[in-house]
C-alpha cells in the first residue's frame, strides 16, 4: 500500500469516527431534549424552591472545566504532552467538583423541598440532574482513560482521536447543562 493510500485511509477513518461520535451525541441529545420537554410540560411556568446560588456556582465550575478541556486538546494538537496532562487533570478535577456539588450538596438540599417521590417537581428534578450527573461521571472516566493512555505515549500531535472524542463528549455534557440550569433553577414562578 502506498503512503498516499495509507494517508487517505487514515483521513477517511477519522472522518467516519467524527461522524459516528456526532451521531451518537445527536441521539443522546434527543434523550436529554425529551426530559427538557417533560420539564416544561409538567412544570409549566413554575419552578420548585432550589438553591439558585449553588446552581450558578456549579454552572461556572462546569464552564471552567470546558475551558480547560479545550486547552488540553489544543496542547495535544501541538504535541505538548506536559500541558495536555495539566489541563486534562484540571478538567477532571473541576468535573469531580461539579458532580460532588450536585450529588452531595444540591441533592440533599433540594430533597428537603422537593422529595423525589412526592410530586412532578422532585421526579423531574432528580431525573434530569441524575441523568446529567451520570453523563458527567462517564465523561470523567473517559478523561481518566485518555490521561492514562497519553502517559503511556499512545497519543501524538498527529494521532489523538481518543483525546478529541473525550473532549467533544465533555463539551456536549456542558451544552446539556447550559439548557438544564435555567430550566431547573431560573425559569418560572416559584412554587411554595
Amino acid at each position, binding site marked *: 500500500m502506498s503512503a498516499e493510500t495509507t494517508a487517505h485511509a487514515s*483521513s477517511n477513518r477519522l472522518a467516519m469516527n467524527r461522524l459516528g461520535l456526532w451521531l451518537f451525541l445527536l441521539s443522546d441529545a434527543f434523550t436529554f431534549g425529551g426530559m427538557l420537554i417533560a420539564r416544561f410540560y409538567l412544570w409549566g411556568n*413554575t419552578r420548585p424552591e432550589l438553591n439558585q446560588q449553588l446552581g450558578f456556582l456549579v454552572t461556572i465550575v462546569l*464552564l471552567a472545566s470546558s475551558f480547560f478541556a479545550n486547552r488540553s486538546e*489544543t496542547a495535544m*494538537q501541538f504535541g505538548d504532552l506536559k500541558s495536555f496532562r495539566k489541563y486534562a487533570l484540571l478538567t477532571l478535577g473541576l468535573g469531580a467538583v461539579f458532580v460532588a456539588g450536585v450529588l452531595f450538596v444540591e441533592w440533599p438540599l433540594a430533597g428537603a423541598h422537593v422529595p423525589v417521590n412526592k410530586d412532578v417537581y422532585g421526579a423531574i428534578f432528580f431525573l434530569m440532574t441524575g441523568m446529567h450527573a451520570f453523563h458527567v461521571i462517564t465523561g470523567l472516566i473517559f478523561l481518566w482513560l485518555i490521561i492514562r493512555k497519553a502517559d503511556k505515549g499512545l497519543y501524538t*500531535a498527529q494521532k489523538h482521536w481518543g483525546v478529541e472524542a473525550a473532549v467533544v463528549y465533555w463539551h456536549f455534557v*456542558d451544552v446539556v447543562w*447550559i439548557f438544564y440550569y435555567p430550566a431547573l433553577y431560573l425559569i418560572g414562578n416559584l412554587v411554595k
Partner: protein
Amino acid sequence: MEDANLEAKKKEKYGAGVTILILLAVASVGEYIIAVTGQNLLKVGADMGFVLILIGVFKAFLVIRDYMHIGRLFSNGEEH
C-alpha cells in the same frame, strides 16, 4: 522558524479559548442577574423564560462552534 510559527499558532488557539470563556462567563452572569432581578424586583420572573432560553442558545452555539469544533465534521478529516 517553524517552532516559532507553531508557538504563535498555539498561543492564538489558547487566546481564542479565553475569548470564548469570557463570553460564556458574561452570558452566564447576565442570565443569572436577569432571572434573579426579574423574579425578586420586577416580579416578572415567568416572562423572562424566553430571554433565558435565547441566552442558552447563544452559549450553546459558542461551545458547539468553538469548543466542539463542529466545522471539523464537514472538513476533509486531515487534521490528525
